């Protein structure tokens, strides 16, 4: 066993002397968290919208005021800002031209007779034209205008009749979780994957090409000691890097996990189990790769697939069926799921036991594969 520790020690020493490897493994995922988290997490506000009024009365003014003051908020109802930047446009033709030229993303057309219909309590239709080449903004405009219309009609009803109005009373079960917090668990898993690719697999392929593995074989080191040493060093490197990423995500990005001692322990256990599975998987893959270049190039699509099908950036419920199927057998799905439960819900062991079971089975399979491939590949 001393041999395995020596093999492991060599890898760790090299890792420490090459800070660029660890920096890349931390910075890549952390940048994703900062950039993707900022780009996707925010509410869509100040969308330019043209308002064409063909009716001039109190209801029209009221409706436009509601639109003007409509607020959109980030996940969790914070950082609320005006949804629209409204432009009053006299004729519909001008508004349509503005839409085509991209100066506005929607047109709210208040028709002739709007005020009269409302005072008569007759249904009236406000036409909303949407630039649906930007589906997210379009959806946001549609929802906000519908909400404004509902608000106006309820105000009219309140002021004129005693009809009961049903409102849903929303209650957040947990504290507000921002989008970048939602995607943070995937970031930690990705840092493990980065180390598995860069410091686990590539290192091994390079060692093989340089004859270092053959160099091991002329010493009394047993094959199993080499395998154990290589895998052990990989797990230590990946675990260390993911914990460093975790800490930096708290310090730099402002992620606020809700962890007690048990939670921290279970989180570290999740990260360890994930490290073992991914390191073993990439080790097996690296040994089978014909060259370092082939390995490097082909490991990027593997990383992308695992990351985006894990539910790290979007809820699994929104995936098409084929992608749901992929996520079912993706180990990162279970890591991300377990980490979210632990970090934001204060879940105990019971809640994550299923995730652990999958990760344990996956790790065991990959370990077996790595050992078989390694023994044959040496």
């Amino acid at each position, binding site marked *: 066993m001393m041999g395995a520790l020596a093999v492991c020690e060599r890898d760790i020493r090299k890792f420490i*002397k*090459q800070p660029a490897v660890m920096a890349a493994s931390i910075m890549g995922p952390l940048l994703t968290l900062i950039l993707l988290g900022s780009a996707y997490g925010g509410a869509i506000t100040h969308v330019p919208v043209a308002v064409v009024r063909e009716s001039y009365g109190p209801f029209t003014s009221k409706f436009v005021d509601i639109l003007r003051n409509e607020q959109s908020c980030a996940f969790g109802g914070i950082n609320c800002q005006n949804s629209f930047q409204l432009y009053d446009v006299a004729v519909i033709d001008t508004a349509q031209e503005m839409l085509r030229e991209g100066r506005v993303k929607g047109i709210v057309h208040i028709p002739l007779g709007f005020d009269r219909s409302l005072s008569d309590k007759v249904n009236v239709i406000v036409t909303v034209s949407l630039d649906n080449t930007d589906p997210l903004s379009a959806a946001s405009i549609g929802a906000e205008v519908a909400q404004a219309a509902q608000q106006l009609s309820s105000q009219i009803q309140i002021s004129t009749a005693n009809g009961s109005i049903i409102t849903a009373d929303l209650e957040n079960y947990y504290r507000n979780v921002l989008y970048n917090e939602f995607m943070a668990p995937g970031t930690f898993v990705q840092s493990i994957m980065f180390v598995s690719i860069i410091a686990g697999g590539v290192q091994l392929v390079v060692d093989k090409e340089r004859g270092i593995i*053959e160099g091991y074989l*002329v010493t*009394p080191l047993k094959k199993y000691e080499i395998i154990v040493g290589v895998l052990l060093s990989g797990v230590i490197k990946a675990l260390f890097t993911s914990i460093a990423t975790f800490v930096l995500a708290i310090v730099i990005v402002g992620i606020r996990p809700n962890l007690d001692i048990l939670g921290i322990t279970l989180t570290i256990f999740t990260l360890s189990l994930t490290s073992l599975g991914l390191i073993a998987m990439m080790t097996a893959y690296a040994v089978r790769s014909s060259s370092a270049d082939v390995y490097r190039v082909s490991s990027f699509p593997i990383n992308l697939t695992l990351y985006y099908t894990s539910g790290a950036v979007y809820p699994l419920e929104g995936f098409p069926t084929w992608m749901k199927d992929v996520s079912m057998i993706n180990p990162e799905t279970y890591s991300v799921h377990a980490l979210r439960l632990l970090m934001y819900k204060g879940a105990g062991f019971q809640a994550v036991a299923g995730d652990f079971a999958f990760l344990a089975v996956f790790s065991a399979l990959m370990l077996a594969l790595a050992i078989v491939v390694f023994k044959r590949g040496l």
Partner: protein
Amino acid sequence: MDLAVQTFGITKTFGDFTAVDHLDLEIRHEVFGLLGPNGAGKTTLQRMLVTVLTPTEGTATVAGADILREANQVRERIGVVTQASTLDLELTALENMNLYGKYYSVPRKKRQEKISELLEVVGLADRAKIPVAGYSGGMKRRLEIIRALVHEPEVLFLDEPTTGLDPQARAAVLDYVKKIHEEHGITLVITTHYLDEAENLCDRLAIIDRGKIVALGTPTELKRKISGGDIVEADFSALPDTALKALEGADFVLEVKRRDGGLTILVKNGAEAVPKIVEIVDSKGGKLRTITLRELTLDDVFLSFTGRSLRE
């Protein structure tokens, strides 16, 4: 007498290609050279002896242990320096050596003593704590050689130990290798295609070609084997046929070979032959431009045994 290495019909084939062909070899506690051009089978032979490759047929003992049945004992008793460097450049000399000591389970105290002793021997003690990346080619080689000695092996295998080094660094490495053999009594098995290296360093040599030993002996013995003579290289401004005939017929001449601009003449005794050649050429109306006498080299030996030059 116990041998450092003994092979018994050792053979290695790769598909249709026979790299090492039923080879029998005995290496004593000496500096032994395996000489041959690239692809001759010397590296394959060495890789079998260090237990990395399994022979297709036959076996061998190294340091008293069988390479097939007792591979682990073999590994404990040998040191190996491969052709391509396997040093970790980011790590210091001390770290590189320490790790190797651990691979061989050398106890800590002994390891530290041995490492500082070896670093001293090859003049690297004062730079032991800087990363190896900052070393010159010669220093890296020296480090690599002593790294293979931390566990005090009985036999040290060196594969092309001076390839890629400048002449000065080569000389230094060879000096240290000699010193290691003389002071520590370690058997050295060196593969090389540098003739001067083999000639100066090795007690005995085997010339390997196409997986077989074509000649075996001390460098002097090998040279004597082809004729026991010297070589005269002569260039002419004018060489009438009569002069050439007279040279070929002379009793002190063993063989005359034509080459561009002159002749290579194999003679029994160079010192006596040169004036005689001058005299013959003069008397037949030829004109000598230069005449040089040189000793036989291993290249001549190699050429005569294999029909090929080593430098090809």
